[in-house]
């Protein structure tokens, strides 16, 4: 693991307004994510884990403070710039896999690559490569409904890796899998992220995933507790 910061959060706050009530979800968070590290984030529901993920992944902008990822300041980006940023530099892994049901496994991976300036052959090569690496080389033409939960999540990981992004964000990646499948998926993600030198942030309730972490963070009441 290099000690080269990929992302830096400085005094980041995020508030949501619900009717008359303002909820401060993140309160003055300072955080540095190093390149190549795998960080596991724990915390109770509503503590701000997902909000943190949203900000680092350029899905949202902070209410105050600064979020800089791979040299780019998220806070000052337009919606269009954030979409471009996500396309090029962030891979997402979701709890419910979020595969497009009408696309095959390989097409799901290609869908993530088609928003990048890549040739068609290169898109196909990468999709096949990462699906094979994840152990689904024989099932590239299967639709999600023809795959098990674990296989679907592996397609989701291949989709995130195929972009070869500097940052992969996983939101409860094992939350919908049985324990064995969950650990297998986590093992694959942990190993393969090294091939693309990606920083991985995993938000989870599952304490067993800490075993794969270079660093474990705990969020409590909108602040990094440890």
């Amino acid at each position, binding site marked *: 693991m290099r000690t080269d910061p990929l992302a830096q959060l400085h005094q980041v706050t995020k508030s949501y307004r619900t009717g008359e009530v303002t909820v401060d979800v993140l309160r003055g968070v300072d955080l540095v994510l190093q390149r190549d590290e795998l960080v596991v984030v724990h915390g109770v529901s509503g503590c701000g884990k*997902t909000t943190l*993920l*949203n900000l680092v*992944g350029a*899905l*949202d902008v902070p209410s105050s403070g600064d979020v800089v990822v791979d040299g780019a300041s998220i806070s000052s980006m337009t*919606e*269009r710039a954030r*979409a*471009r*940023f*996500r*396309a*090029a530099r*962030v891979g*997402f892994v*979701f*709890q*419910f896999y*979020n595969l*497009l*049901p*009408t*696309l095959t496994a390989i*097409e799901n991976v*290609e*869908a*993530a690559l*088609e*928003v990048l300036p890549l040739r068609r052959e290169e898109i196909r090569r990468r999709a096949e490569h990462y699906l094979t690496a994840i152990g689904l080389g024989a099932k590239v033409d299967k*639709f999600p*409904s023809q795959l098990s939960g674990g296989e679907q999540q592996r397609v989701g990981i291949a*989709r995130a890796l195929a972009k070869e992004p500097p940052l992969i964000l996983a*939101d409860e990646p094992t939350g919908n899998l049985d324990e064995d499948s969950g650990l297998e998926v986590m093992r694959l993600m942990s190993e393969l992220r090294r091939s693309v030198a990606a920083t991985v942030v995993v938000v989870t309730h599952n304490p067993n995933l800490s075993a794969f972490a270079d660093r474990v963070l705990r969020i409590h009441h909108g602040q990094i507790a440890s």
Partner: protein
Amino acid sequence: MRRDLWHMRWRALAIVLTVASGVAIYAGIYTGLLSLFWTRDSIFTEQHFADLQVSFLPDDARNLPDLSGIPGVARVERRLLFPGTVRVPGRRPLAALMTFLEHPAPGVHAFKVVEGRLVGPDEFDTAVIDIWLAKYHGKRLGDEIEVKVGEATYRRRVVGIVITPEYFVSTSSPAYFIPEKGSIGFVFANLGAITDTLGFTMVNDLVFLYERGADPAAVKARVLVRLAKLNVQQVLSRERHFAYRYIQSQLEGVRAFVPAIVLVLLTLTFIVIAVNVSRMIAADRPQIGALMALGYQPGRLLAAYLEVTLILGLVGGALGLAGAFLVRDIFATVSASSMGMPELRTLVDPPTLARALAWQLAVALVATAIPVVRLVRRVPQAVIRPARRPVVHLRMASIRGIAGAIRQLPSGYRYAVRNLARQPVRSAVTLASIALALGVATAYRLSVGSLDTTLSGWLANDKWDLAVDFLHPVPLDRIDELKALPSVKQAEPYFSCYVELRAGDRIEDATVLGLVPGSQLSMLMMAEGRRFRESRRFRAGAEREAVLSRDLSQRLNLSVGQVFEAHTMNERFPVRLVGLSWAAVGALTLMPFPVAEEICQFPGKASGAYVDTRVDTDSGSALYDVDFVAKVLAKRDLLTQVRQVLSVMIVVLDMATGVSVVVGMMVILTSVNLSVLENDRDFGTLRALGYSRGLISTIVLTEAVVYAVGAVLLSIPIAVGTSVYLNAKMSAAWIQVHSSFSPSAFAGVLLPALVLIPLGSLPSLRHVLNRDVLTAARARALE
């Protein structure tokens, strides 16, 4: 449920607008039709439209039989009618009909004064004119009008402009069942002036008004018995009068189109509401199941949904009823103008409005009840369980070729296209309903186009450029005066007169048209049998042959080969029916010229001529210089009139097209909205993957465009099939319509549909783009 209305506002809007469209078109067109009929009938009643008109050779009024005391006749008036021409400076002469009235304020065919006043009882130098003469030829009060009748010229000062029911809609030529606004100038003057000049009262026309409730056929028979000694030229009952018959047939034609439009709208209402309610209850399943578990009866749950539909239906109905007035006014105004009606009286017909609303509400409630009943019949546990995420059906996409083509698309498009195969029933219903709406609208346009092509083809088939009516029958050798004109290449005489045809106990009025042997200019379109044998001279004892228009043979119950009798001027002529013709004009008896001469009892004379000019665009102005020429009808102008007549139908069709496109948008709104909501998470995922708003918009629009293109393609065979069916119906009832499939008829409906229908997806797109990305991406089940 009522509280949920705001949350389902787009679905509610789709329901409201669909019901509104249905009510507006149903109520609008029907009240428009009723308004037009009401205009004709109320004006005819108020202005005492004649129940019977009898024309005869001019005679001294003292020679007329006693016309008093005919049972059933309330009033009879005598008139003298002269065809002539009006000279309008700077324009070609205008055909005119000079009517000398015994009573300046007639009690039959009474006047409605638009401007000025009526002719005074002792005024011999004044006249009133029909409104079209003022509107189209600029005649005003105080102008002097000069009507040339043969050698005589009548000069009158215009003191009034009137509407007369007699010429409420007028035709330029009785041989063609097509109105021509302002093509004849109608001038009314005092008969006393003629009496003063001649020393006796000359008349050639009687108009009768029947007593209320009298049997028209019986009264007509009594009148004709009383007039037996007159040289009757024409007997025209109310129903055969052009002004009455034309409006009737035109509006009946339009009315025939309307039920299919209404049926399509009701079907679409059913589909839109059934799809929306299905979606609503799919989303509400857990709540519905919970309420059922708490002991709520199915009937109560059903009532809740019916109540919401009823509220939305009533809102849509109210909007539709408001829209119906607009539809009525547009339709009635354009129709009245196209038919040449000088006045329009619109009416509100509460039963029609109520019927339109009731049908739409009934269909809406049934469309709501079916999916709700299907759900609440289940046990609560089965209802509580959320609906399964739709299984991917890719049978359509796996068809070889289609699958290959889809695979070439970028992922976003591929996703959108395959989404359609994911819900095959909904996609099929969406496609079918839009295609049905577009197909029927296109079919009507195709049929009107076919009618236009057929009628134009007919006219083109006849080689004449001008049809010339004479002021009076003229000796055949005077046709040479027409031929001598430099602009005339060829002229053929014809003879036309009124006859009464009898076959068994059936009696019909008809017009005889005698054509010269081997006519080069006038062709017969045979529907059955053969053309009559040509002969230059009728040989005594030879069998007379005739071709009847199909409508006439049907009314007389005559088949080809049978014999009927032609009655005229107290003579009877047996005639064999040798063929039937397609004819746009009803009640036509086509005969060899010598036979017509004999039956009409004008040997060696012609009542008109067909003229072929050297230049096709010749309007025939020069022919008015020949003193016996009354009216010149250019075929070119007739074609223009044909198109104007068809424009009435085009108005209805444009409305149908507009409604089809709006309904298509509603269906797309409903269907794409459902698809977007069901696939909310997919769009969230794509946005998280870096798909820009533009790309997401493209994906949503792709789905809508695929629907639109698919529906347009599917609508083509529907349009062709429906049009062929409509043409067959028209052929059976009227004239043989040859189906033609003009690309412009397709384009008129399908191009706006292609452009506008995808816009129905805009509310869904707005939802997708405004949705919080991660919330959407994290969503697990259907909302």
